[in-house]
């Protein structure tokens, strides 16, 4: 991590025992369905899917959540860590209640994607990757979302929104509680 002065809240729970029992139970209940897709001798292959599920349940991948996933897959904790930090859809720091990701790659920017991102940064008063003070929205710019023909595009909580206009963006963000 590049931040040296993170608060305890930023660092999150450290050990599996620190995680809410009810959520751990939900994660455990979801595992068999995930494991079904892989040969029984390759349980670790479920790492990406298991981390995704853990993130859905725990909101972000704290060290404790990463340890839980590693533990259940019989993998080293460092394996969970390196996967969680490699892929940009995993959050290894706390995020807001909603994550808004605006594409600023070429085709989107030709259609106003960068301007949209810049506008949101100002109106929400956050920097790239930052979260609004009320904890409502984490904003960041992302790379091409495969929606270049319906640019500009953004993801809101992992759902794609395309052919954006200032009006549609306002409506979509307005609907986020």
């Amino acid at each position: 991590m590049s931040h040296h002065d993170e608060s305890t809240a930023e660092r999150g729970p450290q050990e599996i025992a620190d995680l809410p029992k009810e959520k751990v139970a939900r994660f455990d209940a979801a595992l068999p369905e995930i494991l079904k897709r892989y040969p029984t001798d390759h349980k670790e292959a479920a790492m990406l899917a298991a981390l995704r599920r853990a993130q859905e349940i725990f909101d972000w991948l704290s060290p404790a959540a990463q340890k839980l996933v590693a533990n259940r897959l019989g993998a080293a904790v460092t394996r969970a860590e390196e996967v969680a930090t490699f892929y940009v859809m995993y959050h290894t720091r706390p995020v807001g209640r909603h994550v808004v990701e605006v594409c600023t790659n070429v085709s989107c920017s030709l259609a106003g994607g960068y301007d949209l991102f810049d506008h949101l940064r100002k109106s929400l008063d956050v920097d790239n990757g930052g979260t609004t003070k009320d904890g409502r929205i984490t904003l960041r710019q992302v790379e091409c979302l495969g929606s270049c023909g319906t640019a500009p595009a953004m993801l809101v909580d992992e759902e794609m929104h395309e052919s954006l206009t200032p009006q549609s963006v306002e409506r979509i963000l307005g609907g986020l509680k």
Partner: protein
Amino acid sequence: MSETLILTRRWPKNDPSIDGYRADGGYRGLEKAIGMAPAAIVDEVKASNLRGRGGAGFPTGLKWTFLPKDVRPRYLCINADESEPGTFKDRYICEYDPHLLLEGISIACFALDIHLAYIYIRGEFAKQARSLEKAIEEARAAGIFGGPKLLGKADFDLQIHVVRGAGAYICGEESALMESVEGKKGYPRFKPPFPAIVGLWGKPTIINNVETLANVPWIVEHGAKAFADLGAGKTGGTRLFGVSGNVKRPGVYEKPAGYNLKKLIMEDCGGTASGRPVKAVIPGGSSSPVLRGDEIDVSLEPDAIKAAGTMSGSGGVIVMDDSVCMVRALARIAMFYAEESCGQFTPCRQGTPWMWKILEKIERGEGTLKDLALIEQLPGNIMGQTICALGDAAAMPVQSFVKKFRNEFVEHIEGKGCKHGETGWGVSRGSREALVGGNRHAVR
């Protein structure tokens, strides 16, 4: 003569469910395939001149023959990562006609004696992943695959699963894709050995793009010759071209493989939305060398466009009119590759951010002629020096933009800024740190 459509004929309105697909004649190719000798199917695909649609254009039938004869199990990975900027075609196959892909996969698996296939789809395509999951459920319930038999007739156990990525362009590279399916970070592997010999979990593995496999049912049903005849040169069939940027009608167009780029842009897409002249076209995804507006009268067939110094790669055509600053566009592309380098090896890990930073500096009007000389030299230091093709992919746009629009770079240096002004899109405003997102960089 009406144009033959193979991939888009059911888009976007026909019922994507299995009933809709069958009502339109779906799964007839598989029906025919299970009555054929597996080797005959491979021969048919070879003779069809089907070439990979993921970017490299490798002959599909030939790739299939690389599997060693007696090693089992073998696997199939279907590449639905679709992350090359400007590319947006495979998602529509997954969304509008998922059974077409599943039929292609089933035929390929039957032909190659593969019993386990993974569709690796980028994490951002949640809707498309759901569409594929639903189609797999339907096909299983209908006894098409997933049980002891294919179509309830041929003894053949086949399992197809969807695996979702989690945000990493590099996982579209085939060896990184396999690492990711194995549950690891997407570090490309050294080659050789090639995946067909040592692939997923060390076993022989075929990796094909979504669009590539979606052509297979038609080839089996209508024959190799009909498919080859639709194309041009050594490339059979039609292709999906996704046109974006400054055009009147952006979107995906299915055209014969040898279609003319200028015709696609000026006629099918209606030219530029602004009515201004076309200044530049990136013809095959952001890694393909750029063409000037006066160079676009070329065939999109891979070998033909190669002669024009570029490639039709993933079929992603990005059009820019004369209001667009080439330095800014290139800086944004360079930022992408800097962001997406897996970071495993030095020339690419250090070279890609270096190129990006120099381009930003020139764009801001702070560059010197020395910077320009450096940016002309750096791509050459990366090309051919890297483990995977991302290095080349990052170097080619830099080389071509600077070569073809050199005067714009010089103008930025001599005029100490961009004459296109501060408005419009760009990468250079705001704090530098704000532009670097993503966890890959936080841990570097």
